[in-house]
């Protein structure tokens, strides 16, 4: 799979080295095998969507990539370096940001503290004010509530904050799980607009989206998972016709 991207790789990596390379990945949750031999790559600056039914293993892929869940086999490479088994903080320092599914903010910290925590660690203290400005520009609602503790935000606002933490400090790869989960449609559009800006800065995207149609519009490459294995990969144009069948499997659709 080769997805040519607008932005070039950073100076210290060979041109053409994918920002993320997943090879033969498997994963287990206890006794349950969640992933079977998953392989794909994300080129620098590319936008890849992972689609599949619930339980297909999309979130698990994201979690193994960022080190939250240990790989049961296979390798994960970031900019050519093998990071399999590395702790999440090490992978994050290599420029990978992960917006996890659900409410992923620190409820006891204020909105601003949530942002400062991440920005300071990823960008350094000097760059924090600029990053804050940028994020409050994208999400004025968060600016209004900057001093409020994140736990008192509504579910959707917390989601917004989680995205803001990632969008303010984008680097090499941004992994977004269940992007539109709990967000009002107008906010979803804002978020996609913000993702476009991030891409323009040369950051690659790995999107996991419940609304497949919307994800296809934002991605230039699609990887379809079913029951923990890759069943198809290609451009949205190539796949959109057969997508339903690929996602749900042949024959009558089994929900759940």
């Amino acid at each position, binding site marked *: 799979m080769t997805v040519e991207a607008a932005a070039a790789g950073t100076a210290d990596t060979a041109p053409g080295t994918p920002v993320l390379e997943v090879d033969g990945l498997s994963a287990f949750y206890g006794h349950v095998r969640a992933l079977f031999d998953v392989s794909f790559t994300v080129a620098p600056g590319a936008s890849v969507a992972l689609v599949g*039914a*619930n*339980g297909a293993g999309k979130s698990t892929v994201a979690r193994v990539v960022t080190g939250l869940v240990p790989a049961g086999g296979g390798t994960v490479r970031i900019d050519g370096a093998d990071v399999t088994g590395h702790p999440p903080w090490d992978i994050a320092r290599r420029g990978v940001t992960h917006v996890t599914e659900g*409410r992923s903010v620190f409820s006891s910290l204020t909105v601003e503290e949530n942002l400062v925590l991440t920005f300071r660690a990823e960008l350094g203290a000097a760059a924090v004010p600029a990053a804050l400005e940028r994020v409050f520009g994208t999400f004025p*609602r968060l600016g209004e*509530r900057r001093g*409020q503790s994140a736990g*008192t*935000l*509504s*579910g*959707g*606002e917390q*989601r*917004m904050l989680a995205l803001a933490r990632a969008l303010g400090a984008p680097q090499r790869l941004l992994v977004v799980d*269940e992007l539109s*989960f*709990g*967000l*009002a*449609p*107008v*906010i979803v*559009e804002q978020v996609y607009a913000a993702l476009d800006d991030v891409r323009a800065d040369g950051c690659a995207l790995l999107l996991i989206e*419940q609304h*497949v149609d919307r994800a296809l519009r934002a991605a230039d490459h699609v990887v379809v998972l079913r029951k923990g294995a890759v069943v198809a990969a290609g451009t949205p144009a190539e796949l959109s016709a057969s997508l339903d069948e690929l*996602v*749900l499997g042949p024959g009558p*659709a089994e*929900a*759940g």
Partner: protein
Amino acid sequence: MSLVTARGISKAFGGIDALVNLDLDVEAGEAVGIAGPNGAGKTTLFNCLLGLVEPDAGTVELDGRRIDRLPTWRRSRLGIGRTFQRLALFEGMTVAEHLLVAEQARRGGISFVRDLVERSEPRPSELERVDATLELLGLTDLADRPVEGLSLGHARLVELGRALMGPPRLLMLDEPSSGLDAAETARLAAILTDLRHRSGTAIVLVEHDLQLVEAVVDRLYVLDFGQLLAVGTVRDVLADERVRQAYLGTDR
């Protein structure tokens, strides 16, 4: 007469208004949707109706009876069932037990003595109703599984089933489709419409998935900053200029 009449509900958390002087009416057997941007106060409204949060002002009537001073469990027994946006299942219990515990709690009280004297096996009638609800939701095969092993989609159905025992006259669903894929959402819509036809249960649905909303509800309330922005049929409300601005964005 309305099944639910809420008048002037207001609630603030730490100086931030979650609900401002809100009125809500639900007729018996009616399905009402509540939509609105994030933070508009939708979940708070549910909590106020069921008594999990005490509103700063306002009254709630169920069938003409004031219930806003009653504890949550009393309101539940009067016929209000709800699901939670963040799953709140009972760890360690099976799917069928979730439904049974709700059935028994809504219909009977707590009696340690009865347990000691007569072992209090579930009555056949109770088990029948549990089975019927499992059947309705397509959970029969999973009846004796502990909920820990379920997928999110099934877990949401267990919450729905638990809310359906009793059965309730008013069913409040808090973003039941979040985390479900398209096929599961379609099945949920079918279940809800089927439910209304069969039992005439009134439904209040908080939901972002507009397809689901359109498929299920008769009237839609749109909230913004805790205030009512618009109310009417789904089509009318979605055509409303202010609603489009605040909620949908203009390109839809």
